């Protein structure tokens, strides 16, 4: 494995700035922000608000990936938890709704964690089980329909605002702070990085790798549950067929863009969120640009390729070489 000196995330932040600048070029009102009915309104706010579900997923995914794992089930867990929240919203109080949905997310994470840590199933296979079955479970809960609700408390979590910021953004910031507190305020971060970097060495050094593995999958399940609640609250209904569909891939991409290696080890929670914002800034930019929708995926692929290439140490060296070459010329 290549050894890297600690990262500072320059390339990710630069990529985000470049994409925002590109958005501003295709859509001059991109940075306009005004108050609308007591909440901030503008494309930049949309990027934050729409990026919230993937950002939430990436908060769990980054820890799982740092442990050399992967969680393919997060999209399906979103669907399950969204379905639970929407089904209970009009008949139960918000704390009950949240407890049920978040509890379901934790249970899903526990299932994944046990398969990986205790039965030793490869993470990609273990979580694939729930990825496939989970959507079916969600469809059973909703009976294949879009379950709508009217509870204003739950709706507030999707489309309300706190101090002008959309609630999903505030929830994401809160979850980011909580994640940072959990991994960096305790020694969990060090243990995750050690286990991801060298599981055998860490186990021999007394790190409780199994417990930590189960814990990170549960955290991922919790983050997915919150993302599912936000997604359901946003459209005032649970769409079991489509909620969170393919978002696991966006979350993995966000983590990778954030510089965390799929081989585990060093991770950055904040840069994973920046990665999620990069993806959403790109999506919003495409929507604003007026390009025909057939080009969406191509544009997205090209931008992602550019961001990942910019992080490649080899290409970095090559570009630096070019810089020196051209810099020397009179």
């Amino acid at each position, binding site marked *: 494995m290549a050894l890297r000196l600690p990262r500072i995330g320059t390339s990710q932040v630069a990529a985000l700035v470049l994409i925002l600048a590109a958005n501003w070029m295709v859509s001059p009102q991109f940075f306009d922000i005004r108050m609308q009915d007591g909440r901030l309104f503008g494309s930049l706010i949309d990027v934050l608000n729409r990026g919230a579900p993937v950002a939430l997923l990436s908060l769990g995914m980054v820890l799982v990936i740092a442990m050399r794992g992967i969680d393919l089930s997060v999209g399906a867990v979103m669907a399950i938890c969204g379905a639970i929240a929407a089904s209970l919203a009009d008949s139960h109080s918000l704390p009950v709704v949240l407890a049920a949905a978040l509890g379901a997310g934790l249970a899903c994470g526990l299932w994944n964690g046990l398969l990986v840590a205790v039965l030793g199933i490869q993470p990609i296979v273990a979580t694939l089980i729930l990825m496939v079955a989970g959507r079916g479970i969600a469809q059973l809960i909703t009976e294949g329909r879009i379950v709508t609700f009217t509870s204003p408390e739950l709706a507030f979590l999707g489309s309300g605002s706190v101090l002008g910021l959309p609630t999903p953004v505030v929830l994401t910031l809160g979850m980011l702070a909580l994640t940072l507190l959990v991994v960096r305020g305790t*020694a969990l971060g060090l243990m995750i990085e050690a286990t991801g*970097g060298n599981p055998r*060495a860490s186990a021999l050094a007394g790190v409780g790798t199994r417990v930590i593995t189960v814990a990170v999958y549960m955290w991922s399940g919790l983050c997915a549950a919150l993302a599912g609640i936000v997604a359901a609250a946003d459209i005032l209904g649970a769409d079991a067929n489509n909620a969170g569909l393919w978002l696991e891939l966006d979350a993995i991409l966000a983590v990778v863009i954030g510089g965390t290696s799929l081989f585990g080890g060093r991770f950055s929670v904040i840069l994973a969120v920046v990665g999620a914002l990069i993806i959403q800034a790109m999506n919003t930019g495409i929507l604003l640009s007026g390009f025909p929708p057939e080009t969406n995926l191509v544009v997205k692929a090209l931008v992602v390729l550019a961001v990942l290439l910019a992080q490649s140490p080899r290409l970095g060296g090559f570009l630096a070489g070019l810089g020196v070459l051209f810099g020397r010329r009179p």
Partner: protein
Amino acid sequence: MPNDDSILLSLTGFSKAFAGFVALDHVDFTLRRGEIHALLGENGAGKSTLIKTMTGVVARDAGTMRLDGVEIAPRSAAEATRMGIATVYQEVNLAPNLSVAQNLFLGRQPTRLGLVREREMRRRAEDLLAGFGLSIDVAAPLESYSVAIQHIVAIARAVDQSARVLILDEPTASLDAHEVEVLFGVMRQLAARGIGIVFVTHFLDQVYAICDRITVLRNGRLAGSAPVAELPRLDLVRMMLGRELSAATAQRPPRAPATDAAPLAAFESFGKAGTVAPFDLTLRPGHVVGLAGLLGSGRTETVRLVFGADRADCGRAEVGGQAVVIASPREAMRLGFGYCPEERKTEGIVAELTVRENIVLALQARRGAMHPLSRREQDEIAAKFIRLLDIRPPDPERPIGLLSGGNQQKALLARWLATAPRLLILDEPTRGIDVGAHAEIIGLIRDLCAEGMALLVVSSELEEIVTYADEVIVLRDRAHVAQLTGEAISVPAILAAIAEAPADAA
């Protein structure tokens, strides 16, 4: 500069700098036909940089290279191989899951109409290995064979690709004595065919056993080059270290017997089926127990049971007079045990984490995730042990993977010393590290022992074991076969115990 027909490969003025750090400074090197040429130096002396620049893995900054009088400049290892310079590394870089035959002919399989001719390939593989005195099932996966055989397969592959120069980078580091002899046989045979062999090693005995000529690097410069016969051991060590090895490592100091101390831990009929036969073992404060034996004799298996890395299936363990069950490393740590494993890279260090993080890992794990050491405490612990053990460079924030083997080993010792263990288990603490670090680590073992720590040390360096052990247990074929104490401990005695033929053997 010699200029005769016998010269196969000559390097002149090789230089290489990495980001301002000079790794090679105008090094000359000459290899003759049929010569086994030792390339020696401490870690960081420039051996691996010289090899990498020779084989095109790393581009050199300056220097010329002639093979059979023709100037060459390979730009990659593959190109160097095509030109006739092949390298076999310590960690054999073949595909362990492919068969031996597939590994031998990977990328150049005999084909007919585009299809690989499996049978033909196997036949040729068998012929090829027969030339090395190896008769094995070439259809079996490479990983099913010992490291020694894997090395011979790698060498056979290199030689079969019409190598004229063969570079062996620490091939003997993980081989036991018998395997080393087999490898030496192969090397002699290749040399007789006129192939020039560059042999990188840490084992001075092996240099004198097989090499014709020695070249020593120190701090990126050529320290000297001479035929083996003209370079006595003391001169060689002086050339490598730039100073004389402290006499302390060579002699067993007189010490008071400590056998009367109350045992810290006692194991009775402890063992695991298929791993190591039941054994008795008593560990006392201030007492060093050495485990000696060939590779695979059950040494590592013994210490893994003691540390709970594997679970014993029979026998009793007592610590401080209390019966205990040691089911995991965590439980062993709670009892005050520490364990530096033999496989430093795969079981010891976490390469991408910093020296500081590696040092505090075990202590932190014992405290639990919810009781984090503050950054200041971590810095203090790291600084203390970096100073105490003289870890270089003394930068706690450097990824440990970038340190030399000896310094990684010291950091691993620091990891356990930070937990203030009552029993420290060291598995091959001096393997693969340079001579200077050897002496320091042996000194450290003695100091720890004097402070009242119990030590259990596995080592194949018999000369070293005799200098620090109060008791030596000899293992053979996964069983403890002899126990030597006090004055009875000597290299010949240990060798005799290891070599003693089992009753039923021919």
